[in-house]
């Protein structure tokens, strides 16, 4: 009994020391990590926004895809578009997207901010050319969510990373419908 207790104590001590060390590293690195996230968000906002000045972030509760949105206003105060923060389901986990939509649901620009997709395959979704197949769609023409709705070249380009494509496309289409909904309300 005494022997088992001693083994447990030793293991507990190792765990305690490593936890304290990790806590220290976390305290040191946390400000830089938070700063990097803020820089990434501002960069993404600058990429997708060409339509006006983004207002304050409005958080959405109880929606698994739309996390929040920013109404983009013109100089006269009129809302011109909505930048929506979306969460898609990718191959390696959640895909965090930022997309700017007109009130009609038409996609103006989108960018993949965070993901855990396979390097060299799914991670091509973070490149700007990946999003060209969705841009300009969402009002009369729906955002493509199937390979058959893409051109041959676009369908070939997503080969090997179909789940990533579905995650991005479904989130963008959901965002388009959401923009239409809030556009009609206001």
């Amino acid at each position, binding site marked *: 009994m005494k022997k088992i207790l001693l083994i447990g104590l030793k293991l507990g001590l190792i765990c305690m020391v490593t936890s304290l060390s990790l806590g220290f590293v976390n305290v040191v*690195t946390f400000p830089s*990590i938070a700063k990097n996230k803020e820089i990434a968000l501002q960069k993404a906002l600058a990429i997708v926004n060409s339509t006006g000045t983004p207002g304050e972030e409005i958080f959405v509760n109880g929606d698994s895809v739309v996390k929040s949105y920013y109404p983009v206003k013109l100089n006269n105060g009129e809302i011109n578009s909505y930048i929506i923060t979306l969460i898609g389901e990718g191959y390696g986990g959640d895909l965090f997207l930022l997309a700017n939509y007109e009130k009609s649901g038409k996609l103006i620009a989108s960018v993949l901010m965070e993901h855990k997709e396979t390097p*060299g395959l799914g991670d091509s979704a973070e490149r700007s050319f990946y999003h060209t197949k969705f841009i300009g769609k969402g009002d009369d023409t729906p955002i493509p969510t199937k390979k058959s709705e893409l051109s041959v070249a676009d369908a070939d380009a997503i080969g090997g990373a179909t789940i990533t494509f579905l995650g991005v496309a479904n989130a963008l289409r959901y965002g388009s419908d959401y923009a239409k909904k809030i556009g009609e309300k206001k």
Partner: protein
Amino acid sequence: MIKELTKGVFKENAIFVMGIGLCPTLGVSTKVVNALGMGAGVIFVLICSNIMISLLKDFIPNKVRIPAYIVVIASFTAVVEMVMQAYTPGLFRTLGVFVPLIAVNCVIFARAEVFAGKHTILPSILDALGAGIGFTLGLLVIALIREVLGSGTITLFPLGSFEGVIDIPVLINSPVRIVGLSAGALFVIGFLQAFLNWYIAKKKEVK
């Protein structure tokens, strides 16, 4: 003493001779820059965990040595993860899920169990360094072949006006896509292993 360093690089190379650490090898070896980042992370965790385990070898009870090693290795991996996320966010984003997976890399666990748990600090550091360099070299060779043939590029770190990507003429427009996929990685590893076996056998014949 120098034998402890060189054996991990050639004679006991983790990827080509021992066939361990193949999961991250398949996943990460799509770009040269990923191989460099992953290699640096593995070398850091290998050296730190070997030092710690070698120091604690008389303190850690034999019955719970495996969970104790896992705690030590996972902690150093978490350190690498946080430091990368804070100071090299671009590389952290690129390596993605493979950074936390360093904790379950068989190369690190094998060196802890086979070597660091039975030897003093200096040989353990040399063993870790040799095994880490061997793993990184293997990863680099595979990544170079896969990226050149599979994507027609060589991706390095951006530096000043250099964007970090070198385009390979002809291959950039018509790459051999299969080499970039996981199946392609298995082909490349298989061919490299076959070449190494042929080379070693030929060397023995000459002797």
